């Protein structure tokens, strides 16, 4: 029989234009190809996560995909309670043979877009807008800065965060305002990792004719002409893969840390930003990619180092 599958989005919701959305795209692609459906749920609190995980496990769902680090603890608890159910956890780590924890080396992808940004800037001032001041976002900005400084150590990076409440991911007006302030201070390329708030930043870049870099999914198509590139994080692929593995009976637990090598992160180059990426930029970014793949360049993860070297 077909496996029973489910996706649990975190508080950001299925349409967050970010990793939840990416997950849903992966599940959707699987459904299209295999005609096997899946359930989806959105939770509002950690207590609810545990509740819904247990409910699904009791209904003999074969694989539950839990999106977002906030679900880590709940997955760990329920995985222990239901050893027959399989789990895939995105962005977090939970122990158990039946859990596949998928982490991403956001710093590597950010490094690449940092290189691209540094090549594209004329003012030598780059911007970064994060949703909240949390380790995940710090890893983005840290990789971005390392990449930019590898091109030109004198490049300045102005960074702002949107806020410290959960509405920080839903405040496009503030995102736009931050972008505008950065442009006024001379920034001409910015990287927004702020969920819905980032949408405002990208929009502002378009309005001001500056360049912007999207995050998580490929956002180039949002504003062709001003979207320099996007740092894509292949949550969709991770979900698609694990669904496939369950279908084919090849699912294995454990922790995987997906970087460039594993195609977990990448930069986006497509028809929408083709005209903005000059051959030099493309060459330089691809070179950086090679260096990382070959191990010549090691991008530091601020989460492990507990601070950022640049």
């Amino acid at each position, binding site marked *: 029989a077909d496996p029973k599958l489910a996706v649990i989005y975190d508080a950001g919701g299925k349409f967050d234009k970010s990793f939840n959305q990416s997950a849903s795209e992966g599940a959707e692609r699987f459904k299209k190809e295999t005609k096997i459906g899946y359930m989806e749920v959105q939770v*509002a609190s950690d207590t609810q996560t545990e*509740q819904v995980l247990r409910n699904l496990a009791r209904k003999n769902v074969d694989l539950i995909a839990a999106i977002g680090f906030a679900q880590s*603890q709940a997955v760990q608890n329920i995985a222990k309670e239901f050893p027959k159910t399989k789990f895939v956890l995105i962005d977090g780590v939970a122990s158990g043979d039946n859990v596949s924890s998928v982490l991403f080396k956001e710093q590597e992808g950010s490094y690449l877009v940092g290189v691209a940004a540094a090549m594209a800037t004329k003012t030598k001032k780059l911007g970064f807008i994060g949703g909240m001041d949390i380790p995940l976002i710090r890893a983005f900005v840290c990789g971005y800065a390392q990449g930019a400084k590898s091109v030109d150590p004198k490049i300045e990076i102005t960074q702002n965060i949107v806020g410290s409440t959960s509405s920080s991911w839903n405040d496009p007006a503030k995102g736009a305002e931050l972008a505008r302030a950065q442009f006024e201070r001379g920034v001409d390329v910015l990287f927004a990792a702020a969920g819905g708030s980032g949408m405002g930043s990208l929009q502002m870049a378009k309005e001001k004719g500056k360049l912007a870099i999207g995050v998580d999914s490929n956002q180039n198509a949002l504003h062709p002409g001003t979207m320099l590139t996007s740092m894509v994080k292949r949550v969709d692929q991770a979900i698609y893969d694990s669904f496939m593995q369950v279908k084919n009976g090849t699912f294995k637990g454990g922790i995987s840390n997906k970087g460039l090598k594993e195609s977990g992160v990448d930069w986006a180059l497509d028809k929408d930003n083709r005209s903005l990426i000059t051959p030099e930029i493309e060459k330089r970014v691809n070179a950086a990619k090679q260096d990382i793949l070959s191990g010549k360049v090691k991008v530091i993860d601020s989460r492990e180092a507990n601070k950022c070297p640049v």
Partner: protein
Amino acid sequence: MNNSDLPRWATALLLPLLNLLSALLVAALVIYLLGENPLESLSILINAAVLNPEGLGYTLFYASTFIFTGLSVSVAMQAGLFNIGSEGQMYLGGLGITLVVLALDASLPSWILIPLALVASAVFGAAWAYLPGYLQAKRGSHVVVTTIMFNFIAASLMNFIIVAYLIPAGQQNTASRIFADSSWLPKLNAVFPILGETPLNISFVLALLALVIYGIAVWRSAWGYQLRATGLNQHAAHYAGISITKTIVVAMLISGALAGLGAVNSLMGSTHYLNLNFPAGAGFIGIAIALMGRQHPIGILLSSILFGALIQGGFDLSLEKPNIPPETFIFIQGLIILFCGSMENLYAPALSACFKAKSTFTTRKSDV
């Protein structure tokens, strides 16, 4: 009051029921427009929130937190203060618990650790309410404004503390480490196995206890008398020798302490760690609960359970009916508050016309 010529039971039961039905009617319309069957949806909701024992457990679990935040807002309201800061106070209360537990869970047994953590949550919550209370009493700075500000400040402060100090090294999750189980509150399913796997824990009992103490303290003690006198007429309170400053500060301290205790349920009873934004609006729901429950213990209890049921039932319903997004229940919550909390007289004229035909029974008692 307009409905003074209605029998008491009609005012207390029939009117709220009619209002609740009206709210549900509007909600049913929306559900119908979303393409689902309202009756079927309602039965799923009720089943998930009340009839199914495990669901009921979750309903009461959510209600436990709401009772505390509802009480927090109510106490301040009795003194004429509109404390919008329960959210921030609860957040800080969570910090109090976490600091105590993280420091001591390896060394202390449950029977000391748990009370200590409870005290810490109250103390931290109260401390966060102290300054707004003091500024209101001494400087006349409007408590509505200062508590809103303190919510924002709490959010920033907690974000900083969690990220800088509490996340275990190398972890992604913006949360503290897991508390050792010496700090875990006993779950009620140990006594009532029928509840199944619900996080419902003894903080529900604590919440009920708090309701009783609140009721007695406010309506039966001299302190409560002074509190209410201050809230109703400060001139008369001053004439009566009540220290306005002290009453306001103490009311805010207690309000903050109750909000702080609101953190106990989820931190020590369910998740067992402190995470970013864990109050998730429970402090604000407390405002709605205090207003809807008329700051009366039974009112607070009933509206807390109603809100708990909506969250639990709504969540299950949106699982079963993908067409109904969970946000629909936020809308329904709003409708219920609107109809039950602020339109209590909607049907009073019609109803009293009905009753007038039957009897001339009248009451004209005060509301105290």
